């Protein structure tokens, strides 16, 4: 990818960075366990878009799509297991507050 082609796709990169910032902010600021997972989802969406844009810019679209499909499969599994953990924590602590999930006893 030359400097010109990178500049051509710079607008996509700006929006990807903004999406990353929103995901990180949601992860850092919120106290709700489900909202933490929503922040994580936004981060994964930014990574997905970055892979697709990089594949398009480098003319490796097929490889980028294969990697995106793998990423989506991993995303589904992570979110499903995390939802199970959230439900388990909620039944234990009677709350979705992250601050109440700090009393782990090993």
């Amino acid at each position: 990818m030359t400097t010109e082609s990178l500049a051509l796709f710079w607008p996509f990169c700006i929006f990807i960075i903004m999406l990353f910032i929103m995901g990180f902010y949601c992860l850092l600021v919120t106290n709700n366990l489900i909202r933490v997972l929503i922040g994580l989802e936004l981060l994964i969406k930014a990574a997905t878009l970055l892979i697709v844009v990089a594949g398009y810019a480098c003319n490796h679209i097929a490889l980028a799509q294969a990697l995106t499909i793998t990423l989506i499969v991993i995303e589904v599994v992570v979110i499903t297991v995390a939802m199970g953990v959230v439900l388990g924590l909620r039944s234990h602590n009677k709350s979705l507050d992250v601050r109440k999930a700090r009393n782990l006893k090993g």
Partner: protein
Amino acid sequence: MPGYETVDIVILVGLTLSALWTVMTRSLLRSAIGLAMTSAVLTVVMFRLNSPLAAVFELSVCSGLISVVFISTISLTQPLTWEEIIQHMKDRLSRFWYLPVIVVAVGIALAFLKVKIGIVLPPEETEKDVRAVLWNLRHIDLIGQVIILLAGVFGVVILFREANKK
């Protein structure tokens, strides 16, 4: 190599707005719907970037399945009391009002930034068909996907078995 068009920028602005609404909205259910909307807009971006197979996966799995998982989990948790809602609203306003300011400021700063990075172009793609790439070049990825899926299934089974025992 084709670049971007005005319609791409409009779609990306829509993606940012839906993501911002997902983070900023008070209701968890609306957040989950916003996340599905973000996935749907991301699907359109993927279609525009000549990645139809990945776009279909994004639409069916992320916009459909994950939204169902989120909404099911939200419906399984009890709603807050009125006092908790009022306290929650005050807390949220003080914590989340920075986000739109930060996002807009970073967007404007990056738009005026002149990028001068020279990256070497990778070798030409030998295989143009995504199915051939997935089944011939990246078949180890498929094995990894199967293992991850099985790990996820066993993880959920163990989590709910432990919950039932308690």
